[in-house]
């Protein structure tokens, strides 16, 4: 079907240059861009549409009916998922929410402190500290995660909630974004004025600077929330007790078992469908708050 649309689009491509000379009024839609974008949307929505439909199928229907035909097993699938090991799936979802929520909150706070300090103060070692923190972006997570595991094992912290939470609090990218945002949003005059009035540095930060930084910090929070929610490697290395698993890890282990017992496939699919829902909800919220200028600001600096 997609090739057909491309063929249709091809002749239109030839006509676009002609529209440059002050196009006549009759061309109200630019066809090529619109079709290209719609094809892109079909491509990205395809697997999501598939999982929505597949989650309605019973195990038998999954392998026997056409993939894009809805099935009849949705409520049964949910019941099965609920029943699977005493509803462990919901623990995974709760764990994911906990890791992401608490982790992103702490991460945002640390980013806000650091970003504010790096943006508004001139002090010795400023660029060095900033560059060293940034270099953290380049470290492949597994490079960090293996020695992190060994060190946390020495502190008897592996296989605990903390072992997943602590390493994710510092986000070099979050610090970077917070610095850019703080330098754009917090005028030095205002900070100076606060000092003249005798306010302490902490008070200036909490009462004056932080409220100005809120929109940028919402972005950092959402960014970190998604990053922690999507993380797989760190919990994979740190955790062995599956009651502490986040969703990504739980679904992975379910899939691993499913390769031996295809009956579990429907559980994996239903689980994946439900796992996507909260993020799509969050994503629609992101659309409103997500300050995209922040990202491009990062580019322009």
């Amino acid at each position, binding site marked *: 079907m997609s090739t057909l649309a491309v063929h249709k689009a091809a002749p239109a491509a030839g006509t676009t240059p002609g529209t440059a000379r002050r196009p006549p009024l009759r061309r109200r839609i630019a066809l090529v861009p619109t079709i290209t*974008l719609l094809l892109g949307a079909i491509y990205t929505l395809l697997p999501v549409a598939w999982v929505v439909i597949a989650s309605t199928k019973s195990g038998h229907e999954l392998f026997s009916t056409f993939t894009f035909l809805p099935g009849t097993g949705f409520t049964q699938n949910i019941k099965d998922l609920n029943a699977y090991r005493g509803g462990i799936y919901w623990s995974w979802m709760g764990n994911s929410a906990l890791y992401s929520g608490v982790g992103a909150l702490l991460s945002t706070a640390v980013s806000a402190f*650091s970003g504010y*300090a790096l943006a508004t103060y001139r002090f010795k070692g400023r660029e060095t500290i900033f560059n060293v923190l940034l270099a953290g972006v380049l470290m492949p997570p*597994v490079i960090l995660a293996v020695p992190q595991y060994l060190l946390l094992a020495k502190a008897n912290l592996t296989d605990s909630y903390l072992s997943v939470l602590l390493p994710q609090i510092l986000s070099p990218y979050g610090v970077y974004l917070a610095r850019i945002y703080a330098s754009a949003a917090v005028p030095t005059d205002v900070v100076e004025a606060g000092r003249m009035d005798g306010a302490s540095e902490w008070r200036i930060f909490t009462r004056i600077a932080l409220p100005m930084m809120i929109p940028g910090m919402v972005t950092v929070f959402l960014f970190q929330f998604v990053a922690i929610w*999507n993380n*797989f*490697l760190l919990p994979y290395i740190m955790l062995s007790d599956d009651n502490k698993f986040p969703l*990504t890890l739980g679904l992975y282990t379910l*899939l691993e078992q499913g390769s031996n017992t295809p009956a579990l496939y429907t559980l994996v699919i239903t689980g994946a469908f439900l796992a996507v829902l909260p993020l799509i909800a969050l994503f629609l919220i992101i659309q409103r708050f997500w300050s995209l200028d922040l990202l491009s600001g990062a580019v322009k600096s």
Partner: protein
Amino acid sequence: MTSPASRKSYGVKGAPYAFLLPATVLFALFFALPIGYAVFLSFRKVHVSGLGLGANARKEVWAGVENYTGAFKDSELLHGALRVLGYGCIVVPVMLGLALLFALMLDSDKVRFTPFTRLAIFLPYAIPGVVAALLWGFLYLPDVSPFYYVLAKLHLPQPNLLDGGPLYLALSNIAVWGGTGFNMIVIYTSLKSIPAEVYEAARLDGATPLQIALKIKIPMVAPSLVLTFFFSIIATLQVYNEPTTLKPLTNSVDTSWSPLMKVYQDAFHRNDIYSAAAEAVLIALVTLVLSFGFLRAANRRNKQEAR
């Protein structure tokens, strides 16, 4: 003298360090210390005396560069690196090409459905890599895939997407699907910041939309292309989730498909943390050299263009 003024200036001087304290402590504990420990371990090995029995039979000793020479000679690691190179050669150009294309299309005049398509194309960003690999994995499975259904109805050959060359395409597709939207948004926002007068002037000179795109828009968003390129290279070198998730679905992805998987395998399944540490350090070095080399090259070009 302890005048209020001097005390206050002391407070100001100390303040930035106090604000940076949490980040610095966390960096020391969860970045610097583990990296240092990994480097230390990479120069160590276990010396087994006698039959390896008894409390003191296994001793950690200095190994010199033994683990590193071992890593260089390790064909599994080399093959993993080559696989990731091949994978990256598909992912990076396709993903960034599509991101640029979509961004330009979103930015062009008289386009319809932009809020919807922008949202849809960005959507995979919110879906965990593991879940994305899982969804596509099922779409690649002949038993449940709509593609195979269509191919069968059309009496066309059904390639095995989870084996051999197509496996690279299958894996690349997951990364492209997941990453295009984010990069598109980065490029699109920087397109939006180009002042409208620039286009007006170009139109008055008789430039076509295609010429405007090629000669004005693309050069002006070059910095964001550099940034997205940079992020994509780092992400490619770190590929782990997608092949790991596809592993249960196919025999063609083994435990050392990518170098990072090999590190995990050596550290936790073969219990050879010393070799794993050496491999990890090597991968980190390659990442650093590639990123800094790339950034320097990009900077030099920018400076030349500025002249």
